[in-house]
């Protein structure tokens, strides 16, 4: 859409304001606006068909409404999501929308009502974070039956800084980005601040790298600025590869200009106009959005030569990653951009001194860059007022696993795990007990219930043996076996280790083998000691951060759930009933009601018995007439331990031991 607009180069603030006007008209048109969440997640949940259904129905009814696209609105559990904006009224977010519910939604809108069974939350005004202002949507509160975002548990404790535009704007429209205060911070930086001042602001804000290490961003920039060399680079790491994590993807899909603007401010501060964005090939939508965003910014002269007439030039290239997890490591990523095998090197000489092609290079991840325009816009003090003692600002987490509300959440640092899991996440489904939460990606650690009141920030998470990582958060309930969990992550890591150094390559493989042995009930006491020894040597002597942190899943589960390891090894028992080799299913003949459902469901037909009245209830007459049943029993030698009999038994007669 935006391509059709006549663009002219933005030189002055007035030009930017003109584009902002266009953006605001698009964001808040004089007609009904139906925004569908079309991020990768929404598309997977069926949002494309939903949009088509909306378009068809709007056309059919001749409704004065436009159907538009946005990306991740955050509430994954309730996808597909539609955001409805009627001029003069509160904006309402609807969830669990299907093509079938489109008619009802439009009926309600036409009646001036709310489709309450799908309504999630309402907004009476939109915050424009970068400038700290608000856009008033409704003059008075309408739709008061729907909770406000502040009153909706999933959104109440969230503060969206890096994700400020995600699910709000159409990320294919630079005008909408500018309409929400975009590129204002770049203008301020280029026209009013010396590079050193920018670095000072970032330093004072307390921003730390969101990619995992938590290194102070201002300090990194300062080192790179003072490093010797004419050619320097800024790089954005978008090689997010943790299983179950999608923070960076969502930010890139939802707000590519936010990342670009941060990158440009960083480039200016460090003293370079050369940038790379390393995007993994598994993120095709993010790459497309980014490519388009770069083209749009070039058309407006926001990327290119002499930006805002200040003499600052900026060029950015997208480097496509081949999907190796290790390429998220800074030196491996740079090797990969250079065209070499993606392998890390020893980092005693930092990349800020000698990085890409041996030139001083500043690498930050997507979320870090996305924070930068806001910090410049609102000031260091504003940013530093959010968060905890040592970790300022917010952090985006992908909250997944055994929680009622899965989703992409952004919360102030220092919020407790309990608030994230129980308030935002809504707790554990099915009245199950919380067991542990895994943070920090595959090489993070598992944190048990004792630490639910832990304040989530870089330092606290490390203290309990886990880490912030890039922000994956996987919740596990009582049905999770912690040995099996460690085994799962080690399986990932042994395959994703680059294999360069001995401890990481051999150690992760060997740890996986031992964990597998424990899960099969074949391990002995000394295997646990060997496992701890290997974990120690991998942690202590590996070359890069992948190896140094790879033993975390093992070490943290041994630390908090040693009894589970011991149960597997000594008693050949899996307390959670997950490890197939250690589980046996049997049927209590006293409790069996001879209904035969277990036998009907058994995929290998290893359950036999006779349907009928249970022996205890059967009369002699029943027996004579052949109506008496015989309790069912499982033939252990043929059982594949799939557990379907256990699930299907209506009286709990099937036992898992």
């Amino acid at each position, binding site marked *: 859409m935006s391509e059709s607009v006549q663009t002219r180069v933005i030189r002055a603030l007035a030009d930017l304001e003109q584009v902002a006007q266009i953006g605001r008209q698009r964001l808040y048109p004089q007609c009904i606006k139906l925004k569908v969440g079309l991020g990768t997640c929404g598309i997977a949940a069926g949002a494309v068909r939903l949009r088509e259904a909306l378009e068809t129905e709007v056309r059919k009814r001749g409704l004065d409404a436009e159907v538009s696209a946005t990306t991740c609105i955050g509430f994954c559990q309730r996808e597909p999501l539609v955001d409805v904006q009627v001029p003069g009224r509160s904006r309402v977010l609807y969830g669990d929308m299907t093509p079938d519910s489109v008619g009802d939604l439009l009926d309600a809108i036409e009646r001036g009502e709310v489709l309450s069974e799908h309504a999630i939350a309402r907004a009476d005004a939109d915050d424009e974070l970068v400038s700290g202002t608000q856009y008033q949507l409704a003059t008075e509160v309408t739709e008061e039956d729907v909770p406000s975002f502040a009153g909706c548990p999933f959104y109440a404790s969230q503060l969206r800084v890096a994700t400020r535009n995600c699910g709000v704007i159409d990320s294919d429209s630079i005008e909408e980005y500018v309409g929400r205060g975009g590129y204002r911070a770049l203008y301020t930086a280029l026209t009013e601040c010396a590079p050193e001042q920018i670095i000072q602001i970032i330093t004072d804000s307390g921003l730390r790298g969101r990619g995992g290490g938590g290194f102070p961003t201002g300090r990194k920039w300062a080192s790179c600025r003072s490093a010797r060399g004419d050619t320097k680079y800024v790089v954005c790491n978008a090689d997010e590869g943790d299983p179950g994590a999608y923070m960076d993807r969502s930010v890139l899909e939802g707000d590519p200009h936010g990342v670009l603007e941060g990158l440009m401010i960083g480039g200016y501060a460090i003293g370079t106009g050369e940038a790379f964005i390393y995007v993994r090939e598994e993120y095709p939508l993010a790459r497309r959005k980014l490519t388009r965003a770069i083209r749009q910014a070039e058309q407006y002269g926001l990327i290119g030569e002499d930006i805002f007439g200040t003499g600052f030039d900026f060029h950015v290239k997208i480097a496509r990653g081949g999907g*190796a997890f*290790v390429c998220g490591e800074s030196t491996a990523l740079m090797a990969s951009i250079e065209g070499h*095998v993606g*392998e890390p*090197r*020893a980092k*005693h*000489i930092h990349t800020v001194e000698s990085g890409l092609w041996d030139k001083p290079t500043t690498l930050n991840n997507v979320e870090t860059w996305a924070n930068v325009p806001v910090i410049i816009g609102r000031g260091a003090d504003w940013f530093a007022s959010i968060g905890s003692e040592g970790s300022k600002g917010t952090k985006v987490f992908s909250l997944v696993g055994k929680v009622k509300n899965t989703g992409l959440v952004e919360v102030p640092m220092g919020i407790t795990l309990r608030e994230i899991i129980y308030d935002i996440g809504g707790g554990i489904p099915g009245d199950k007990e919380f067991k542990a939460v895994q943070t920090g990606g595959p090489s993070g650690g598992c944190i048990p219930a004792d630490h639910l009141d832990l304040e989530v920030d870089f330092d606290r998470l490390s203290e309990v043996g886990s880490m912030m990582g890039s922000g994956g958060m996987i919740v596990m309930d009582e049905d999770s076996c912690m040995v099996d969990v460690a085994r799962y992550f080690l399986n990932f*890591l*042994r*395959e*994703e*280790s*680059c*294999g*360069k*150094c*001995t*401890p990481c*390559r*051999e*150690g*992760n*493989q*060997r740890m996986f083998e031992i964990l597998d042995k424990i899960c099969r009930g074949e391990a002995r006491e*000394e295997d646990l000691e*060997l496992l701890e*020894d*290997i974990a*120690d*040597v991998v942690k*202590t*002597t*590996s*070359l890069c951060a992948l190896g140094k942190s790879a033993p975390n899943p093992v070490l943290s589960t041994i630390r908090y759930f040693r009894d589970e390891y011991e149960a597997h090894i000594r008693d050949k028992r899996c307390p959670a009933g997950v490890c197939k080799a250690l589980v046996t299913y049997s049927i209590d003949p006293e409790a069996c009601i001879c209904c035969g459902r277990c036998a009907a469901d058994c995929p290998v037909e290893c359950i036999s018995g006779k349907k009928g009245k249970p022996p205890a209830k059967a009369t002699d007459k029943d027996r004579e007439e052949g109506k008496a049943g015989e309790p069912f029993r499982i033939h252990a030698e043929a059982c594949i331990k799939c557990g379907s009999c256990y699930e299907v038994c209506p009286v709990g007669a099937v036992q898992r031991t």
Partner: protein
Amino acid sequence: MPTIHFTIDGKKVSCERDSMLLDVALANGFEIPALCHHEAQPPYGACRLCLVEITQGRRNWIEASCTYPVRDEGIEVRTNSEKVQRYRRLNMEMLLARCPESEKVRQMARQLGLERTRLPEDGDTECVLCGLCVNVCSDVVGVGAISFVGRGSERRVDTPFGDPSDVCIGCGACAEVCPTGYVSAVDNEESMTREIRPFHTEHRLVACPECGRGFVTERQLAHLKEQLGPRSDILQGCPVCRGRRQAAELRRAYLTMTSGT
């Protein structure tokens, strides 16, 4: 370059700033085991056997000495502490399980006091993945016929797609630097061929015009001629015959000189 003063096992040593710690230690007569270190190649940091313990003020840590640039005055390095031995042995246990057939690995393990590993000795290779062959081929020879293939425990050294290499010049540098003998260059005088194992790449040997021995592969000769340009006439004949010829010339020159006086 400024000079840095520090100690290794209590002995005072000094070196230029940013010298690699392993090089300094070896030059000062300390013994540190390593598999991926070669004086003709930049440090790689793969085997993690050259571990040392470094103390700097209150900090104390284990470090691979090959990739550690010495930058700080007064650091205390220990090459054989209990901690160092523990971690060297643990890495060695894993290498031994990987390469149970390698005499070199077994011998190094024995030197670390390790007769056997607690892990199953189920590896079926003699390759320790030190990277010397890959790096010598690409960085020193400048050919790049072999590379690492695969990730993690699947990693191995191979030619593209495992096919005989079409860029290999058969120089045998890979075999020369291989610490375990996994890579080898085997000459067959009868068929006048050289095979680079295990990359099943075969080369034709060029016979020395004097003694008839195959001394260089055709492609290596072409490669060297290209590099040497006008000076490539020095490649006439095998090194032994060249030496003999030069010795004879020297002798003649000497005799001429002495007889003339």
